[in-house]
């Protein structure tokens, strides 16, 4: 079984062992084209690693935990994170290490190399893995090269690669990966020739940057772009970039540098070089029998070819190929930093201001016409902020994911979610709100006479305690806004506080944490040159983690202003009062106010499924999202009103909880949620309170009945339903 191939040895029939990239490099090298010194680590090495270590079996267990069709992207990302951690923790067996080490040392000694993926199956224009797998530049020494080969192997199981393989019908479990080790060319100008422009197939495109190619490929550096007519070979246009940065080799890995003025003002390629590259692509197209995308670099004006692959099937698969979307699932650090600034400096302050401004408007004094206009205006405002939320807040959650990837890669922890310990304990707005509730409960605990007064309902409304409760009930009322009046809401808040008196829930962050030691461990795992980056990354991840919860509170406050206006309309119009309180129907509410004869269309509600008495769920599989084990009676949250019926010690079972609803969490013994993922709100708040949590349990709200005794295993992600209803 051949583990290592030299380019001169690779035949066309070897493609299934060496992958598309190595195969193309071999063809070019055998044609005496300028290819850097390269060896290929075959898929045999990957397979020996997977089978001898038992990793394949372990991965398949993880991958098939749930039916793929029932998994959200977030769950696939989690699955991929766990698989990557398995790779990181599993040493390559000596049967592979020994021959590879010898060859790598003989071939490259301590010279810098690039370790690139060479995926099997990428042999036609119908499947292009470009950008989906990992490549690493400037890696030195046998040990480091071996570690990076493992990272390349692991990238077979990235979320994007899994999704893409599924989409094009490749079986992920049968996929294997070869790796290319290539002498690093310290090119001064680099780029890509795209044999056909995605927008005009009669043209080729050449993109070029100063420094190494990575900046162009990952989008960090904006390239100059030339369009060339494929028939005549003439340059049709040149779009210069705003040239400011370049990626160059650092002592380890790569770094971004600022360009000097001379280079900023000069395109990285002359017209002569552009034409030279285009002629080369024509030659390669003839050699390979199809139009190519080619990565190249100029080292002291000497052209070197880094890889060539058939063009991505833009036209044919434009409708179905979601590779672009998969690639957008990763965000660069710089991109995330700019999103954070936008959210913290612009979006959040503006949201707070908006909610406060709307709150000051006296709806009661408006005429029906004015109220209708106000409802439409508020509906537009909600839509505007929802869009901002989707465009900026949701992508910013990638900050946590970027940190997770870097943390697990450098620290190699036993627990793939150890990184969350470094992020938890940030003061969420929802947790602060819960602390206020607990403080009021503590007051009742200390003062028995006050407690008796509250329980008897005789506490005067103007007492300090009543006023504190009233202020807090405002915050709790968002999910119930409009459904009950302020006095009923206050009563429910009192009941909730009384329920909290004996919980004695100690928030996890108040316990002794190992947070600082983990942070030290993470920083120590980074090289000195990356130390500052690591600190910035921790800071970014904490902001990303905090905002993931907080931004929902801000958005909830704005939604609440619309709900209040709709409720005012319900008070005035009989037609509106018969409609469900639903902000998506705000326009119909406004129409009812404007025209008393207007009748909104009735929308059929989903028929209630009668539970089958013969087929009963016993054990449900989800994702382990909060370590721990607890049993308790299920409280299934179907309506916002169910929140206030929550009793201490119950297990919170819900479809999808948002931070406006998590005030009951301190009372809960565990959390179970239909929506999956480690970074959903249910999982985040469970970790804050150290509660067992299982997420991603399909149909859980239908399968579990209120009052059933259930066991929640947050270590294994299993929910077991015991028989009987203990509460009504």
């Amino acid at each position, binding site marked *: 079984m051949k583990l290592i191939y030299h380019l001169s040895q690779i035949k066309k029939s070897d493609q299934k062992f060496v992958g598309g990239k190595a195969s193309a490099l071999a063809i070019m090298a055998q044609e005496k084209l300028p290819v850097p010194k390269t060896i290929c680590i075959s898929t045999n090495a990957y397979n020996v690693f997977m089978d001898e270590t038992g990793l*394949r079996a372990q991965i398949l267990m993880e991958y098939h935990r749930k039916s793929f069709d029932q998994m959200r992207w977030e769950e696939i990302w989690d699955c991929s994170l766990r698989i990557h951690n398995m790779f990181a923790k599993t040493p390559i067996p000596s049967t592979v290490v020994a021959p590879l080490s010898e060859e790598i040392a003989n071939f490259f000694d301590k010279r810098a190399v690039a370790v690139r993926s060479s995926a099997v199956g990428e042999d036609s224009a119908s499947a292009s893995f470009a950008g989906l797998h990992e490549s690493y530049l400037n890696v030195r020494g046998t040990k480091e090269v071996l570690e990076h080969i493992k990272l390349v192997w692991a990238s077979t199981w990235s979320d994007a690669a899994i999704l893409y393989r599924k989409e094009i019908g490749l079986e992920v479990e049968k996929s294997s990966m070869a790796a290319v080790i290539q002498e690093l060319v310290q090119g001064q100008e680099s780029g890509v020739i795209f044999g056909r422009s995605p927008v005009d197939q009669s043209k080729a495109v050449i993109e070029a940057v100063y420094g190494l190619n990575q900046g162009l490929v990952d989008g960090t550096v904006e390239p100059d772009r030339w369009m060339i007519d494929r028939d005549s070979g003439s340059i049709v246009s040149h779009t210069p970039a705003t040239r400011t940065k370049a990626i160059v080799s650092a002592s380890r890995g790569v770094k971004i540098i600022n360009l000097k003025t001379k280079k900023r003002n000069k395109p990285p390629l002359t017209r002569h070089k552009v034409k030279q590259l285009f002629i080369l692509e024509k030659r390669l197209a003839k050699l390979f029998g199809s139009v190519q995308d080619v990565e190249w670099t100029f080292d002291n004006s000497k052209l070197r070819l880094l890889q060539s692959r058939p063009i991505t099937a833009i036209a044919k698969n434009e409708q179905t190929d979601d590779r672009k979307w998969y690639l957008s699932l990763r965000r660069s650090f710089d991109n995330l930093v700019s999103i954070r600034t936008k959210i913290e400096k612009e979006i959040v302050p503006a949201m707070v201001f908006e909610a406060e401004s709307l709150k000051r408007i006296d709806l009661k004094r408006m005429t029906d016409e004015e109220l209708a206009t106000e409802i439409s205006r508020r509906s537009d405002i909600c839509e505007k902020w929802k869009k901002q939320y989707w465009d900026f807040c949701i992508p910013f959650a990638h900050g946590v994911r970027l940190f997770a990837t870097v943390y697990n890669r450098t620290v190699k922890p036993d627990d793939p979610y150890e990184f969350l310990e470094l992020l938890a304990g940030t003061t969420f707005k929802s947790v602060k709100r819960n602390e206020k509730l607990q403080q009021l409960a503590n007051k009742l605990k200390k003062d028995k006479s006050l407690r008796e007064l509250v329980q008897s309902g005789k506490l005067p409304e103007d007492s300090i305690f009543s006023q504190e409760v009233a202020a807090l009930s405002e915050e709790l009322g968002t999910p119930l806004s409009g459904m009950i009046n302020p006095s009923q809401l206050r009563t429910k808040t009192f009941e909730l506080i009384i329920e909290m008196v004996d919980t004695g829930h100690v928030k996890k962050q108040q316990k002794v944490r190992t947070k600082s030691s983990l942070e030290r461990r993470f920083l120590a795992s980074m090289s000195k040159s990356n130390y500052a980056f690591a600190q910035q990354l921790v800071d970014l991840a904490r902001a990303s983690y905090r905002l993931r919860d907080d931004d929902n509170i801000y958005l909830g406050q704005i939604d609440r202003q619309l709900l209040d206006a709709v409720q005012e309309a319900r008070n005035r119009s009989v037609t509106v009062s018969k409609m469900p309180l639903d902000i998506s129907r705000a326009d119909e509410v406004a129409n009812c106010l404007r025209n008393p004869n207007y009748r909104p269309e009735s929308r059929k509600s989903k028929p209630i499924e009668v539970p089958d008495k013969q*087929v009963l769920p016993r054990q449900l599989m989800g994702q382990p999202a909060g370590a721990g084990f607890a049993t308790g009676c299920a409280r299934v949250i179907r309506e916002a009103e169910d929140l206030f019926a929550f009793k201490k010690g119950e297990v919170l079972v819900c479809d999808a909880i948002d931070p406006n609803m998590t005030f009951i969490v301190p009372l809960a013994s565990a959390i179970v949620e239909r929506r999956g993922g480690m970074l959903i709100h249910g999982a985040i708040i469970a970790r804050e309170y150290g509660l067992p949590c299982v997420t991603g349990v399909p*149909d859980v709200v239908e399968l579990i009945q209120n009052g059933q005794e259930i066991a929640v295993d947050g270590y294994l992600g299993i929910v077991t339903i015991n028989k009987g209803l203990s509460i009504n």
Partner: protein
Amino acid sequence: MEKRTDLRRKLKELFDKQRIGVLSTQKKNRPYASLIAFAVTDDLKSFIFATPRTTRKYSNIMASSRAALLIDNRSNRMSDFRRAMAVTVVGTVRELRKSRKSRLIQLYTDKHSHLEDFIKSPTCAVLCLEAKILHVVDRFQHVVELHLNK
């Protein structure tokens, strides 16, 4: 979760395909497990099997009629963790009267024709596990129960 009809169809397919299951019995707090060849009725309520009367399982059943039968389709490969299905049938065992006209015995010999002489022996008992609940496990840890008498 699967609908009842889909689940029943899947179970019937499994029971028709599998010939042998593991019967668990016990006497005086001493558990025992043994392989048996079984056949099942369409309503999934009756699991028929045969055993010489001298066996430990027969003795156990005479002492305690409650028993469990495990039927599965494992292939002893890693893929079992995601593909295998296992059903534990829980119920009460009763002995059938041997008669040529017995529909249940006919069902059994149709499936296991090579055991026809075996069950004809006067020392062999034909038994029926009357199922109450079927515990169905697939995808490693996903469990549903089919309650036959509800």
